[in-house]
């Protein structure tokens, strides 16, 4: 599947290849396999040994990278438009011809362990990983993405190769390209690059492990000395990207915490949770997120507390605010602000060519909409009542998972 969009404000092209494989395609014993494989796609093919095309892309000033999440593995290159063909050559070649040698697998294993250890240094990663594990009893979303350290250490090369051979193929990929050229030409070039590649005959069915209904609140507490500020994290069971409530949940996230410019940002301060928690001097930051996913995932609400603040106090205020937005429609002025923030965020996200391509791929790969414009139309059409209904359906005791990070003194 190839999607091309035009963007003429800069002489660049951004090429993204989305594979339908991620954490949800893994089982205990192979957690982290998709992410491990992502690293191995940078280790060369028979035609282009390791470092060959990397150096060429670096020479062109390309911005390029890859990431893996629960649903997909993604590779992208943003290049001067004259170099689009090189990006295509790289992606088409490694779609079917990656070497994934034993030697390179061993060399990369320590890099991935190091990536995991870097994440473990962050208390919010530790709490989030454990809370996600608690929130799912059957669905592989509970395993996260990077995998357990022990399983990374044991990951077999042959298993990686089989995973690669099965999932890395044109019939399991989306190609999204945005750039300074005629869209049809961009798409034709991509089609030519990928058309001769052999499809996978082993895709099988998408993973099916429906998560049974949650019957009551689940709670965890993490005690560690690795952080000094207490954290309160809530994860509510939330619907998939194709659910009609998804646009309202995106608007609900903005209602609760705004579209922040990050910690210390001046924006988002009129949002409900910022006013109720941060402005009261109880927390340094509050964050709310709803991601577009293939299967039902989570609606996250979390706060980093000031050192002297009690977890329970903040948790109660958070729940009170969630209850309020679930029972009362938001007022005119607040609704206008939320709509404006959503509208502006669509412009900010798509005025950068790389992020326009990302956004398009995210929407298409999860099935949230059939185009970026359609998704934005859905956001624009969200009503106050839909926001309230989405909150009422989501913020229930039985779908709630709560985690506290309690800092401990150092030994």
């Amino acid at each position, binding site marked *: 599947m190839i999607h091309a969009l035009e963007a003429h404000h800069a002489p660049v092209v951004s090429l993204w290849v989305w594979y339908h494989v991620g954490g949800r395609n893994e089982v205990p014993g192979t957690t982290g396999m998709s992410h491990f494989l992502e690293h191995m796609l940078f280790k060369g093919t028979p035609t282009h040994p390791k470092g060959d095309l990397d150096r060429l892309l*670096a020479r062109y000033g390309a911005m390029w990278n890859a990431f893996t999440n629960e649903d997909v593995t993604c590779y992208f290159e943003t290049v001067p438009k004259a170099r689009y063909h090189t990006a295509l050559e790289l992606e088409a070649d490694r779609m079917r011809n990656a070497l994934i040698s034993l030697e390179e697998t061993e060399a990369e294993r320590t890099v991935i362990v190091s990536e995991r250890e870097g994440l473990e240094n962050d208390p919010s990663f530790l709490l989030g990983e454990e809370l996600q594990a608690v929130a799912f009893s059957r669905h592989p979303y509970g395993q996260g993405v990077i995998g357990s350290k022990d399983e990374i250490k044991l990951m077999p090369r042959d298993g990686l190769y089989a995973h690669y051979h099965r999932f890395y193929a044109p019939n399991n990929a989306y190609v999204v390209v945005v750039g300074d050229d005629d869209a049809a030409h961009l798409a034709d070039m991509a089609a030519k690059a990928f058309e001769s590649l052999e499809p996978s005959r082993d895709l099988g069915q998408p993973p099916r492990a429906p998560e049974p209904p949650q019957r009551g609140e689940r709670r965890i507490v993490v005690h560690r000395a690795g952080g000094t500020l207490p954290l309160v994290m809530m994860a509510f069971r939330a619907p998939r990207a194709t659910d009609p409530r998804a646009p309202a949940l995106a608007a609900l996230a903005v209602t609760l915490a705004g579209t922040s410019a990050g910690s210390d940002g001046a924006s988002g301060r009129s949002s409900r949770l910022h006013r109720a928690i941060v402005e009261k001097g109880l927390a340094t930051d509050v964050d709310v997120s709803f991601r577009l996913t293939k299967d039902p995932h989570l609606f996250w609400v979390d706060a980093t507390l000031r050192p002297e603040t009690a977890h329970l106090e903040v948790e109660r205020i958070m729940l009170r605010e969630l209850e309020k937005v679930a029972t009362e429609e938001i007022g005119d002025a607040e609704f206008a602000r939320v709509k404006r923030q959503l509208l502006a965020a669509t412009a900010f996200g798509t005025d950068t060519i790389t992020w326009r391509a990302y956004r398009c791929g995210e929407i298409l790969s999860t099935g949230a909409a059939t185009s970026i414009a359609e998704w934005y139309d859905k956001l624009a059409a969200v009503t106050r009542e839909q926001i309230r209904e989405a909150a009422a359906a989501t913020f229930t005791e039985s779908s709630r998972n709560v985690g506290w990070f309690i800092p401990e003194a150092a030994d």
Partner: protein
Amino acid sequence: MRVERRQLDNGLRIAVAPIADLRSTAVVLAIEAGQWYEPADRAGIARMCAQTVLRGTTKRDAAKWAEALDSLGAVARLDVGSTAAAFSAQCLGDDLPALLALMSEALRTPALKEDDVEFVRGQTLAHIERDERDTRAVVDRVWRELVYPKQHPFHAPPIGEAGVVRTATADEIREYHIDAIRPSGAILVVAGNATTDRVAEAASRAFGDWRSSGNPPLREIPEVALPATIRRTEIVPDKTQSDVIIGWPGMPRTDPRFVAARVTNMVYAADTFASRAGNVIRDQLGLAYYVFSGMGSSRGQSPWIVRMGVNPENVQRAIEVALDELRKVTEGQITDDDLSLAKDKLVGELDVALESPGGVANMVMEAELFDLGEDHFERYPQELRAVTKEQVVQTARTFLPPERHAAVVAGPPLPVELAA
């Protein structure tokens, strides 16, 4: 890239890079209120002032000002950097006049009330406490303390020192605001959905009558040099990975050797794929997930540092390999391909940066802030291309001597003590 310039009577300079086909506009207003201008021994006052400025004005309280900003859907923040305090924002193109008016209101007529200062104090102390168990923050703080003397503006990170934050008074913040937040030396850069005339008109309305009454802050800045290698290990409890910095005091952006230094940085360690250190440490030896170097762009000797995230078992080796690669650069063991790759990458990145209004605004701001000249964007690629191998070697020998570096490791206890 087309950049058009104007200047208001009060000295505020305006640079506009219109970009067709965009809906949004990126704005950066830089004021000479960064660490460079902070009073000696009061590290953290500049950031406290910046944060307090965002807590309401004489016309409306913090909640109303925040509502007005969010009503535009704009994102904005006010950060203190090494040279400037930068108010950076993005808004829909039509909202630019309203955004500039809000920025002006906050900067020129902040309430700066006692309880606002208390709020900012509480937030800042919490951040400082958080940073005490954050290996990346610890390694940065300790490295600065080792390299820069107490009187130097870069001795502490911009968040400042806890002692200063605890003792800062509202009067001190007000006084700093009068002295530092001024139009002379300030630069407004706008990139994206905008025309120069519209920006000039909106800027004139928002900032045209901005006058300052205080005296611009001045301070004596000592020259910094590393007399010998210094190494320090900082234990951060309950961590898995060590964060490492190897570094040196760098050079001002205005130094004529700065362009050669950027090429040197790229040859050595700036990029995992294009630079020597990343290639060997991550790609060949698998010692680290990330390794990169960066050099600050400021009025003074900003840190020029290599950062790595490494398992404690591998720290000693990763440092040795990083220094070995540097030694090769200082000894001239770099190939023509190394050099051309570094230059090609730096030149190519200029085109790619045009894809985002924020990227364009930042490039224009660097050129304006350091008076790099109206023809900077024509000259700069040529200057990069003209850098020779000899210049790279000489720059590395002068600024990055492997035998005189400061290395700090923050994280779990190391299996063996770090060798000097």
